[in-house]
């Protein structure tokens, strides 16, 4: 998994690619937790190039969400493909995360 980090004010957009699964989850945690330690509380996870997410990847997203919500931050998800959206829906996580059609919309929603 490659992760490109984009800063938009106080929001960090993580443009991820490939899979977020048991094989890649440590790389995702390393990058996102480092940003938390540096003071970031608001994240957009841009999944435009993410083909697959398993339950362990979902766990990493929830872990990130829990950490930032303790600091009144949030994690928003954007651009899920049909398969990943199915996984979010059957696990009901589309109710836990705000999911946007694109990362720009998700980033702007922090200003509401």
């Amino acid at each position, binding site marked *: 998994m490659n992760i490109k980090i984009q800063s938009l004010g106080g929001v960090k957009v993580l443009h991820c690619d490939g899979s977020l699964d048991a094989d890649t989850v440590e790389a995702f945690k390393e990058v996102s937790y480092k940003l938390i330690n540096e003071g970031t509380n608001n994240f957009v996870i841009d999944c435009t190039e993410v083909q697959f997410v*398993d339950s362990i990847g979902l766990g990493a997203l929830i872990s990130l969400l829990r950490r930032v919500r303790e600091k009144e931050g949030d994690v928003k998800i954007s651009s899920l493909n049909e398969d990943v959206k199915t*996984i979010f829906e*059957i696990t009901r996580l589309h109710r836990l995360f705000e999911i946007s059609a694109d990362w720009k919309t998700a980033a702007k929603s922090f200003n509401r």
Partner: protein
Amino acid sequence: MSLYHHSFSVKSDPHNINSLRQWISEVGEKLELSGFCRKARFHISASLVEAVDNAIFHAHKGMKDNLIDISFTVDTQTAILEVADNGEGIKNFSPKLVSEYEEHGRGLYIINQLMSEVQSVFKNGKHHLVMKYNFNDKRVDNE
């Protein structure tokens, strides 16, 4: 009579996940069965990943030298995927959805939603998760 059958073993290592997922997609594409469509390939490959994750982290507790046995059989109506590990198995297999902030425990629930039938059985000294996908299953999985 099956159109496809293949059995093999892999080490209990997350590095294998991506290639296993690709393998299911390639088998589905080559067989050119109308029922083994893109959605079916996703359901079966995602279930295989969850079953292998379960074997790696729960049954084998991260010990990579343990082997996971995988068997995949396809006929015109069904695909049967079997994943065997050294774990103790699952009594009264009926996975429930965990609470939304829980970080673990969704894998078997996902399999149960994506596949038509799932059984946890113990045979030949190993735990087998037997997952069946009916190509004519019209069940809505994300209602």
